[in-house]
């Protein structure tokens, strides 16, 4: 501990936070630099894409289904009170696509994928596997981090689109508990309210979410030092940080779209 730390105890947490932010920025810039440098590890990238999709597909589907259902059942009485039941499909569709789909999917992926990456790389670090890669002249950052972050960046938006579709479908099922409507009519009503300004920011947002999920998992994993206990801590920290960052990104993107 340096003297600055002990003479300024009140500043210590802030100092530590800014240190983390600095280290993380360096890590992120290194990712950007290495991502464009050949060779591209295509096989590992596809393996990671498969893992990301395969591991979270079920969970995302179930949550999205329940979200669509609940949203429809709960807003129906209020809308019916105004005699505006016909607005329901459009309203559900807009809220799912703009907000609920991306955020819920991303938070689930943070829990499922960030923690997995953090634990995986963390245990590779403590068992010297990352050092072994380094000394056999294989760049571990390129091989491990770039492939994982690119995989989450590509897969999270796809999972979001999948979740949106499931939510709207489950909304249709919920609507049909009381009403009687064909699926084509329902989707007609739902999508008629949708505009580019609803879809575009949501896709951009999902891409950012994907990058955040991957890079935070990798960062926490690579920072592991010491024994196996720190692997658990890293996985945990990855989930917490990734979830928080997702809400921050969401807030910023919403502010920007608001201005536009």
């Amino acid at each position: 501990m340096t003297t600055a730390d002990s003479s300024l105890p009140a500043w210590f947490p802030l100092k530590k936070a800014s240190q983390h932010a600095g280290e993380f920025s360096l890590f992120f810039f290194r990712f950007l630099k290495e991502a464009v440098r050949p060779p591209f590890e295509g096989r590992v990238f596809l393996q990671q894409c498969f893992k990301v999709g395969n591991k979270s597909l079920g969970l995302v589907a179930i949550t999205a289904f329940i979200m669509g259902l609940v949203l429809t059942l709960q807003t129906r009485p209020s809308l019916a009170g105004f005699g505006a039941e016909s607005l329901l499909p459009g309203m559900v569709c807009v809220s799912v696509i703009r907000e609920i789909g991306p955020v819920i999917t991303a938070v689930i992926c943070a829990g499922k994928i960030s923690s997995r990456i953090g634990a995986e790389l963390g245990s590779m670090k403590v068992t010297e596997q990352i050092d072994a890669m380094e000394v056999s002249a294989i760049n571990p950052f390129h091989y491990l981090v770039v492939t994982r972050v690119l995989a989450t960046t590509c897969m999270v938006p796809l999972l979001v689109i999948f979740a949106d579709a499931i939510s709207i479908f489950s909304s249709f099922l919920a609507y049909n508990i009381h009403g009687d409507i064909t699926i084509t009519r329902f989707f007609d009503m739902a999508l008629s309210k949708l505009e580019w300004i609803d879809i575009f920011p949501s896709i951009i947002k999902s891409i950012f979410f994907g990058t955040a999920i991957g890079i935070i998992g990798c960062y926490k994993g690579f920072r592991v030092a010491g024994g196996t206990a720190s692997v658990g801590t890293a996985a945990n920290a990855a989930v917490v940080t990734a979830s928080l960052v997702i809400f921050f990104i969401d807030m910023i993107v919403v502010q920007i779209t608001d201005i536009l």
Partner: protein
Amino acid sequence: MKMEPIETVEPVVRIQGLNKTYNGQKVLNGVDLCIGKAENVVVLGKSGSGKSTLIKCMVRLSEPDEGSISIMGKDIVKINYQELNALRVKIGFLFQNGALYDSMNVHDNLAFPLRHHRKHLGKEKLNAMISEVLENVGLPEAGNKMPAELSGGMSKRIGLARTLMLKPSLMLYDEPTSGLDTATSKEINQLILDMQRKYQISSLIITHDIACAKMTADRIVMLRDGAIVAAGTYDELNKSNDEWIKSFFN
């Protein structure tokens, strides 16, 4: 070849005045060391004396603070990342616990460095090379096993096999016999000797195990608190009157 380091030709490794500090604690304190062609040098020292730090500096897993490390004529502290990697390919590093990639089976572990450094190599050639090294380390049937299914001794052998895939001219062993029973230790030591004789590999063996030093060393260097305090053959050091040196040999 057996007794003294070769002075006439440039040694494979020449370390001069190596210093390294961690958080104000001096871990290496002016280490000088030479390793000749096909020579086995053992660094003997207690736990925490800076042995691992020494070999980590040699492949730049750890940045030295001061001093020069010349390996095969290149100062590894000064060269850039590309040159460093070109040199690393010629250096084998056996980690204390093997450091096998636990998501891949033994076959893929061995193929991994070659897939990156010998891209043009055909599948048949690759499989033949893998069979050869597995044969060399005495585990010809282990190809399909996962690292989690291997015992400590087997992991070290496979770790050794993996470093041999790139045909290194210098091997660095971090405690090759620690945590193994006497019989298995002997087998590993024999393997180290075989590799030296068969491929003319120079080796640096880090250990606190005197039996390992006795069996493998052409020359022993003793490290205490990051400084070299004695050097010589096993027999020379065994005759020493110094209490601290004696404590190892009894």
